[in-house]
């Protein structure tokens, strides 16, 4: 029936159009939100006490999960790496394998994923609940801009905490690998550390790792404050905003990691 097909087509076009418009609106709103956060960022510096408090909540309170995960990832990496390297008689390169994996990839990525689950979700839930309980409206009515008082310090708190956590993750990972590789398996400590120092380049490896963790910190913090600020002011709304933060942050981290890796390490044939 041509009329039924036409109706079906119209519904399809309408859905695509509606979806596209909604997506463009969200992107536009997110851009304006980002600009507003940028505009209020000097306030986060002026209100240093608030930003330090957020660094504490996002950073210090995430230490346990980051440090414990780091040490276990390092230990597993050492066990698996040794098993493969030993086949080729290259077990003394274990230090290189572990350090490069952690500094370039696993440190920023895994720390970013853990950070999104631990701190990002907490920030979204906190801002969402503040909105649901009218605390943000109350602030506005008291002539205090929530973007400056609530959003900007939380964004910068996450932004600053994330690279530090990624650095700690890598350090603890290397320490875990040292425990397994040197203390447990018996690889020579001099070879483990010496090869690592010789092979890890500061600019190529460490700096690129830091850049990745800064980018991931930006992405997770921005997603977390955006989702919290735009959540529906209901229990269900806050719950789904928190879930969206974790899912969107994780996917963004993985996608950005691929893009950054292509640009950073293509000269090395990686």
């Amino acid at each position, binding site marked *: 029936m041509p009329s039924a097909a036409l109706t079906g087509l119209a519904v399809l076009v309408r859905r695509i159009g509606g979806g596209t418009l909604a997506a463009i609106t969200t992107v536009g709103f997110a851009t304006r939100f980002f600009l507003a956060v940028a505009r209020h960022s000097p306030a986060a510096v002026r209100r240093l006490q608030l930003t330090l408090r957020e660094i504490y909540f996002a950073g210090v309170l995430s230490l346990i999960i980051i440090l414990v995960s780091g040490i276990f990832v390092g230990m597993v990496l050492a066990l698996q790496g040794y098993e493969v390297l030993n086949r080729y008689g290259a077990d003394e390169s274990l230090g290189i394998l572990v350090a490069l994996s952690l500094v370039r990839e696993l440190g920023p990525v895994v720390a970013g994923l853990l950070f999104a689950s631990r701190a990002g979700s907490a920030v979204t839930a906190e801002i969402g*609940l*503040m909105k649901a*309980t*009218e*605390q943000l*409206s*109350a*602030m*506005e*009515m*008291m*002539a*205090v*801009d929530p973007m400056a*008082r609530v959003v900007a310090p939380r964004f910068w708190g996450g932004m600053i905490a994330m690279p530090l956590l990624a650095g700690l993750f890598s350090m603890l990972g290397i320490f875990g690998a040292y425990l397994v590789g040197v203390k447990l398996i018996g690889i020579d400590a001099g070879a483990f550390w010496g090869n690592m120092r010789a092979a890890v380049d500061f600019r190529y490896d460490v700096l690129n790792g830091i850049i990745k963790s800064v980018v991931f910190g930006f992405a997770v913090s921005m997603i977390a404050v955006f989702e919290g600020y735009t959540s529906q002011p209901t229990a269900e709304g806050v719950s789904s905003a928190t879930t969206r933060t974790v899912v969107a942050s994780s996917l963004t981290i993985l996608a950005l990691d691929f893009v950054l890796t292509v640009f950073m390490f293509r000269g090395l044939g990686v």
Partner: protein
Amino acid sequence: MPDASSTAAPAAHDRPDVAVELENVTFSYDVRKILSGISMTIPKGKVVAIMGLSGSGKTTILRLIGGQIKPRSGRVIVGGQSVPDLDREALFALRRQIGMLFQFGALFTDMTVFENIAFAMREHTDLPEELVRDLVLMKLHAVGLRGAAYLRPSELSGGMARRVALARAIALDPMLVMYDEPFAGLDPISLGIIGQLIRRLNDALGITSVVVTHDVYESLKIVDYIYFVSDGRIVAQGTAQEIRASREAYVRQFVDGEADGPVPFQYPARSYRQELFADA
């Protein structure tokens, strides 16, 4: 009782005795009409109640006065200034002269009671910390909660939280305080305390109060003037005595708490007979 539709009042700009004036204000969310042609005058120093059922548009009026939303048409004048025309800076300057008590207090849960009340002082003034402390304790004393200064909002009862929110609303000695359902969910004693505080603080501090509520009994005891809002329109208005004596059907139903009347008990539906015997 004055006529509900009378709007022929001079502009608030020219009237120093008027704190708030709404003139023929309409407001809608997308296509849903919330207010249709509201006009009201709130004189300085008075306690004025806006009453009506849930969803009648009462809170929207407070949001318009506070500049959180803009009207589709009409004028909203507060303290001689047209609120919708103010830029953000001027709006924030005006809000520093307005206190607001939200429905469930909206206290900042990451701060103590003391910090909640000191919040606006610390944000907007350079007062030394000793003076802030004294002022906060004075405000808390006024609502009878000086002893609760260092408790967290989670440790307060509903009535105490509402009193703390009241102390926070008057922290900067505002010219106008707006109360959004201040009596909702309170026990009878807390209800009486909040009612008395609204009246006493209004008179003692020389402020103007706008109370949005559906609690007739408590409001009639403390307010000077009442506007009844239904379906986005003012359907009745008058002093407490006039409202008590009113024969208007809507007012009677509201004041006497009748289940049926101008506001029907049944949600609109097709006829009962038709519904039950349609398939017979």
